């Protein structure tokens, strides 16, 4: 039987499913027989996942749970149809959508899934960070908090995944949730991390339109054993079944009387205020749509409302804004029904949604206040009433449809033709069936005065409050979302504007320097343009937190691999860096953190032998100082061993045994290419490639690394970086007729040499005696074939620069002053000019080349030893223009 034939049989079954009803066992048997026949077909071999889910459906006890069975069958058929026909509205362009099989609902909405992916990729990072952070913190009691967080987050993912149609994710998330309840978060760190990776891989697979590498069931299967002593709980299958139809499975919770409870907001306040603003937007959008009265609601309108509610729900769950989540969830679920045409979106629903909007506004306001004052939130009765109202309404719709069972599903929505909610509830009451009695109980209970309860609650609260730290007050900020590309353009233009305005100012002063108005106005312009520049730069800044959080994962992974016990700490994670710097920093930082865990922190035995605590510490800190940003990687490990490093360096021929090196110089040896003191190469580090790359990466950002270390006490690696990559702070120097900018970070000092400072080794290698040290002297003009102003170094200026922990002297013609300018590339024609990292437009409109001290020195070294280089490379001579 081919897939096409299977499809035909499925179509037949689909018709039967419409006909069958819970109360009619014969129709059930008929469908079951058909499916059993179907299961025997060998065409399923191409769709193993579909086959498994079909088997699962058939295992359901039809006579005991007819309703569950019907839904499972309906669900299966819709999956199978979309899988076999290869169409459906799934956005996976994959040639074989069956690859996703049961992991993706047939009704999946691509746009929603993309939204899901966008949202959860960043949230999952946070999720991971939380897990790792708690793993490190050993205090008791924090576990409960973590459990709460994980639970609410997983729940959030589950809900989201279910509603967008990522059934596989939903399934696994649910399973993880169960595990979490049974085992607690500590035992599950690995599972949860693997879970994160799995979800991400799935998201990636979806966005690439390929099949997931691991299916939901495989994932569960794979981890079942690991989680251990997992009994085959009889409820398991029930859960499975429950989830396969998230849309219909409206969770009707056991009704509870209203109780005002206190709950607090979790999560980052910055993101929260962002969320509040976003939610506000969504609400206004929904509201304006609803108030645009007198028109029929199209499917798109309903979709838009659904999506808005959905985003609010997702965001709120993340911050544990329970009430918002609950109300949104329930609103979402009936909007979903309306969208599917199961109920008609009439004035009653419109009213409900408007009520929802009003309620949300209030709740958001509460959340905002709670955040600003740092207080906890209280649940309010309105929410409770709202939820009840919808539940009642949905119930009435469900009841009506039950009465009409046997009729076509489409007829159902015509029933609640009521114009107000009260009437709808009346219908429900009139048609109430005995098993729904709990509602009566609930209604009685909730008449009970609330005050008494809250009184006793208050006492408890006061007690609890004392343990809890009062969250700090935060100011709610307002945001506008801007595309990064536009921002980059803006900043580029700001840079150009600053240059042209300073050019203009210079011209004005030269020509009209006497004029007071010109002077004061140009001062004003100068000030304003500087401020605009600062502002522009600050717009690109983002906190380094995200990067640090990624590193916590690196520490955890590496430590685990090496069987070490390492705690990760961070400090100053709110320090803001240019986006481009953060992007480029990720790699080197990862290498250094790995190294700290691998080479820095000792094994548990070694630590105990040395009388240190069993747990090592790797700490990342970031801070601003004097126009630079410092990032420190500190470990409390064994420190760098000077003797060992020296011996290794001599063995490798990097230094000669006679060289006298300072500690810092010796430490810097670890950054040399191919240098590794690790006794054995592990899969973590030891090949000596990493640190070389680290240094080069950091130098390419015009930054530098320094090391401080005490043997046995640990090491501190400090990365110093300029505030932004877009602007160079440097010393403008004149060489020949041209300007060169030497970045301030490299410059130690500059001086005019006296004859007694200069020496010649072997008549060639020029040397400068500087504070008792002998530094190699490189002539920039001569190396580049430019015409220097004078030949005698004593008529010129020497810049003392630092390269990889060593000093060197560069001879330039003149020093013109300090400058900060926007960095520009030399254009595509010039790729990697040795010693020049780019250029900048100077205030007079001329172009200054930015000297990259590191590569220049290595070029100059070769130049000295090579005699005269190829004349072609000497470059053009100047002055002919």
């Amino acid at each position, binding site marked *: 039987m081919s897939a096409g034939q299977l499809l035909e049989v499925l179509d037949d079954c689909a018709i039967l499913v419409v006909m069958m009803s819970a109360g009619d066992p014969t129709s059930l048997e008929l469908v079951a027989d058909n499916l059993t026949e179907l299961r025997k077909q060998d065409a399923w071999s191409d769709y193993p996942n579909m086959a498994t889910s079909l088997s699962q459906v058939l295992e359901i006890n039809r006579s005991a749970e007819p309703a569950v069975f019907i839904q499972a069958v309906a669900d299966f058929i819709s999956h199978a149809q979309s899988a076999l026909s290869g169409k459906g509205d799934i956005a996976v362009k994959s040639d074989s959508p069956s690859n996703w099989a049961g992991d993706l609902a047939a009704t999946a909405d691509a746009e929603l899934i993309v939204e899901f992916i966008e949202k959860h990729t960043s949230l999952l990072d946070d999720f991971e960070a939380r897990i790792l952070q708690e793993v490190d913190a050993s205090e008791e009691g924090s576990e409960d908090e973590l459990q709460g967080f994980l639970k609410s987050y997983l729940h959030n993912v589950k809900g989201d995944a279910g509603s967008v149609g990522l059934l596989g994710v939903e399934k696994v998330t649910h399973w993880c949730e169960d595990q979490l309840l049974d085992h607690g978060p500590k035992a599950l760190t690995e599972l949860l991390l693997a879970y994160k990776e799995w979800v991400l891989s799935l998201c990636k697979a979806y966005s690439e339109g390929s099949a997931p590498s691991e299916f939901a069931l495989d994932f569960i299967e794979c981890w079942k054993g690991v989680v251990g002593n997992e009994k085959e709980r009889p409820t398991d299958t029930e859960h499975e079944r429950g989830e396969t139809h998230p849309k219909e499975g409206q969770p009707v919770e056991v009704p509870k009387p209203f109780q005002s409870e206190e709950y607090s907001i979790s999560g980052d306040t910055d993101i929260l205020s962002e969320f509040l603003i976003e939610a506000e937007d969504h609400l206004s959008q929904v509201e304006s749509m609803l108030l645009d009265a007198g028109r029929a609601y199209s499917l798109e309108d309903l979709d838009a409302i659904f999506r808005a509610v959905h985003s609010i729900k997702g965001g709120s769950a993340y911050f544990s804004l329970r009430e918002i989540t609950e109300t949104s969830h329930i609103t979402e679920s009936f909007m979903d029904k309306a969208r599917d045409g199961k109920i008609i979106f009439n004035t009653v629903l419109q009213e409900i949604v408007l009520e929802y909007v009003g309620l949300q506004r209030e709740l958001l306001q509460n959340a905002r206040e709670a955040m600003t004052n740092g207080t906890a939130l209280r649940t309010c009765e309105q929410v409770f009433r709202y939820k009840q109202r919808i539940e009642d309404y949905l119930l009435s719709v469900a009841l009506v449809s039950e009465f009409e069972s046997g009729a076509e599903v489409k007829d159902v929505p015509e029933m609640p033709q009521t114009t107000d909610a009260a009437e709808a509830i009346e219908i429900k009451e009139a048609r109430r069936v005995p098993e729904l009695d709990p509602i009566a109980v609930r209604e009685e209970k909730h008449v009970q005065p609330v005050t008494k309860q809250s009184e006793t609650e208050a006492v408890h609260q006061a007690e609890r409050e004392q343990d809890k730290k009062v969250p700090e007050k935060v100011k709610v900020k307002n945001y506008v979302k801007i595309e990064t590309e536009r921002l980059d353009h803006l900043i580029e233009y700001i840079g150009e504007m600053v240059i042209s305005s300073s050019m203009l100012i210079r011209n004005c002063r030269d020509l009209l320097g006497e004029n007071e108005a010109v002077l004061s106005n140009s001062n004003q312009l100068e000030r304003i343009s500087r401020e605009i520049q600062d502002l522009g730069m600050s717009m690109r800044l983002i906190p380094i937190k995200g990067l640090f959080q990624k590193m916590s994962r690196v520490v955890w992974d590496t430590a685990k691999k090496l069987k070490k016990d390492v705690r990760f700490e961070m400090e100053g994670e709110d320090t803001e860096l240019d986006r481009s710097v953060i992007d480029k920093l990720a790699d080197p930082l990862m290498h250094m953190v790995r190294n700290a865990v691998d080479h820095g922190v000792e094994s548990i035995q070694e630590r105990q032998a040395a009388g240190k605590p069993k747990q090592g510490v790797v700490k990342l800190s970031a801070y601003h100082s004097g126009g630079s940003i410092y990032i420190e990687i500190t470990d409390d490990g064994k420190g760098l061993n000077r003797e060992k490093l020296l011996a290794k360096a001599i063995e490798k021929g990097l230094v000669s045994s006679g060289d006298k090196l300072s500690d810092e110089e010796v430490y810097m040896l670890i950054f040399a290419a191919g240098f590794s003191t690790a006794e054995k190469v592990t899969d973590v580090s030891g090949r000596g490639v990493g640190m070389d790359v680290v240094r080069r990466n950091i130098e390419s950002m015009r930054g530098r690394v320094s090391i401080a270390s005490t043997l046995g006490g640990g090491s501190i690696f400090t990365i110093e970086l300029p505030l932004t990559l877009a602007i160079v702070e440097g010393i403008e120097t004149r060489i020949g007729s041209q300007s060169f900018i030497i970045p301030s970070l490299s410059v130690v000092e500059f001086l005019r040499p006296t004859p007694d400072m200069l020496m010649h080794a072997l008549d060639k290698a020029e040397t400068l005696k500087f504070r008792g040290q002998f530094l190699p002297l490189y002539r920039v003009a001569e*190396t*580049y074939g430019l015409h220097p102003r004078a030949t005698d170094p004593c008529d010129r200026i020497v810049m003392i620069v630092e390269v990889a922990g060593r000093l060197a002297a560069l001879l330039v013609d003149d020093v013109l002053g300090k400058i900060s300018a926007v960095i520009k590339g*030399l*254009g595509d024609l*010039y790729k990697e*000019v040795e010693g020049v990292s780019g250029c900048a437009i100077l205030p007079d*409109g*001329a172009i200054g080349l930015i000297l990259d001290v590191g590569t220049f020195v290595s070029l100059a070294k070769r130049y000295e030893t090579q005699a005269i280089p190829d004349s072609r*490379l000497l470059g053009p001579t100047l002055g002919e223009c």
Partner: protein
Amino acid sequence: MANSGEKTGLYSTGGKFLSFLLSQEQYGLEILKVVEIFGMMKITAVPRAPKYLKGVINLRGKIIPVMDLRLRFSLEERPYDNKTCIIVVTGERAEQELTVGLIVDTVLEVKDFPAEMISPSPDYGAGLDTDFIIGMGRDGDEQVTILLDLEKILPAEHIDIPVTSESSAAQ
């Protein structure tokens, strides 16, 4: 030298060309690729680059590399004067748009060369690479304009490949 016969595009359709003088010879560049023309301005030299790459200029805040076409074609270098011009052109290289300034002796005029007025460049054999020539544009008068293929003039990926070798220096 597999070049003739493969030339399509302009060779077959013709079009408007900006003509300029380079060591007494007339050359032409497709007008659509020309951005603007101006007199000589201060060039900032970039070290360690082939001689024909003169450096960079600041064109209203944009950094543009300039190339001396005389040196690019291994013609004799000559001091710049008030007739010397920089033609800023935009070409494509390795699927990337590239804006370059070309230094020429002087700019002449815009000329129209329909397809029938363009004849293929003579094959000089291995001694002279004519790959960068679209064809020879014939005018009403006897003057012949050498129509250049901008993309071929731009240096290839790596700037440090040797410039047209000494042996093929023209005239």
